[in-house]
């Protein structure tokens, strides 16, 4: 009978835990940010999103954003995130393929 004792090669992750942002009850009267990371087609998706939400929440207002650094995918910097957080109440993104 053969027995082999081996070291677990998988590293433990350094874990962090954040609190999700509180959610509003609905989107009536809300300022909604539409964030495009500049991957192809995301602009079309966000434009259609705006149209559909505007039908459902006529008093909602919309702003479009793009990341301020990057290339085929553009990312938000902390400064840009601060600005968006001041300007809108919620954000919809085309970010993860």
């Amino acid at each position, binding site marked *: *009978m*053969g*027995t*082999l*004792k*081996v*070291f*677990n*090669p*998988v*590293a*433990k*992750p*350094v*874990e*962090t*835990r*954040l*609190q*999700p*942002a509180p*959610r*509003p009850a609905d*989107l009536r009267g809300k300022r909604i940010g539409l*964030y495009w990371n*500049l*991957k*192809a*087609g995301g*602009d*079309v*998706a966000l434009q*259609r*999103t705006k149209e*559909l*939400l505007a039908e*459902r929440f006529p008093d909602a207002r919309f702003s479009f954003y*793009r*990341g*301020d*650094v*990057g*290339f*085929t995918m*553009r*990312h*938000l*910097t*902390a400064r840009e*995130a601060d600005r968006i*957080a001041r300007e*809108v*109440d*919620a*954000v*919809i993104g*085309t*970010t*993860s*393929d």
Partner: protein
Amino acid sequence: MILLERRGIPTVSYTAAGFVQDARRSAVTFGLPELPIAVVPTPFTNQPPERIRAMVEGAIGQVVAGLTRPLPMAEPPREGVVLLEEEWLTFTGEDQLAAAREMNERFLSYGWGDGLPLVPPTEQAIEGMLRGTRRGPDDVVAVLEPGFGLATVKKIAANAVMAGCRPEHLPVVLAAVQCLAEPKIYLRNKAMSTGPHAPLLWVNGPIRRRIGLNSGVCALGPGACSFANTVIGRAVRLCMMNIGHTYPGVSDMDTIGSPLKYSACVAENEEASPWPPYHVEHGFDRETSTLTLLFVYGICELHDFQSTEPERLTEVFATAALNVAQVPTGLWLIGRRADPRYGTEEKEHHCLFICPEHAEVFRRAGWEKGHIRRALHRRARLPFRLLMLNKEPQALATAHPELTWLWESPETLVPVLEDAECYDIVVVGGAAGRGAFFWGAGEPVTKAIEE
């Protein structure tokens, strides 16, 4: 989106069905497993507008729910990555070979291997491997993304054992892990991409000869002459997987994959080079050993048995850089690879492994590496129209508004890389006029190897 959630702004992200696990893993590693997504059938890329609009119409309910439904904090899900609490694992079989086979089967089922047989990381094997470094087993070398795994010397040693390394190889693997963790490498981008980013390694300095690294015939392998190269490159891949948690289909979303991802490691053929070695060129002493790591998309040959003049040779070499289907070709027009968490930005680099015969052509003409770089940069140009075929026009307007005039002059020749310094040159190989060209992804990082 995490940045915004941290600022109290609710978010939801469109995510294609094939990327849900990837998105969930990212959310977990960034500490927000509840992050809402709106799942659509396919990525928006390469889709006609009417198809994109239809996908959005089908997902709008998820969008509203993601922004308005309360998100109670939950225990992070563990699917995808197998994390066992036990420090030591025991396998049995009819004999030792059967036990080793059982270990391999189990590790494969956990996703812990590269598909090739793994050497069992027994206590004895790890102790032997640790003799290759002066560092303590619990020293933390780095925290590797995308999974934020704690890269202790012992974990790295275990993966080096599994790859088939010898103790004298460990210092090179440790240096490679340090390179991977360098913010400028932006490992998260390369490890999780849908592209075939593979770490290409080259070693300089006296350690090359001491540990038997191959810089000549068949340096990139396979074969016995490249044993050290092969196992070191393989160890780096296993570290990316088991320490950085870069697991295919879970967090590594490479569309096709690449054989370069198994192992891609060479030594510079300093003895056959007419120029200062790569590491000396980059500020290290000749007697210091270094490891350089550059992520690359792919490789093509630099074949030329005809040219005896450097201008003609660089004309041939430059054609390798003119492949529009490669990501870095003209990428600078739409920005730079950037990680806003660390404020890093990278220019796209290409790497040329120039063979000694071609190096000799340049030497005879008195050319230094700088001459070659400038000649490549001068010749590797394409019409703006071609470079923009696979790029988002609005990205150009965002990154370089001063260049939007090029749409009016689409045949203007534009360099494929940002400047001449974006060509890295290393002398590698045996005796024939055949080098190699690598389309790079970002910039290389060089670290001293601590022996």
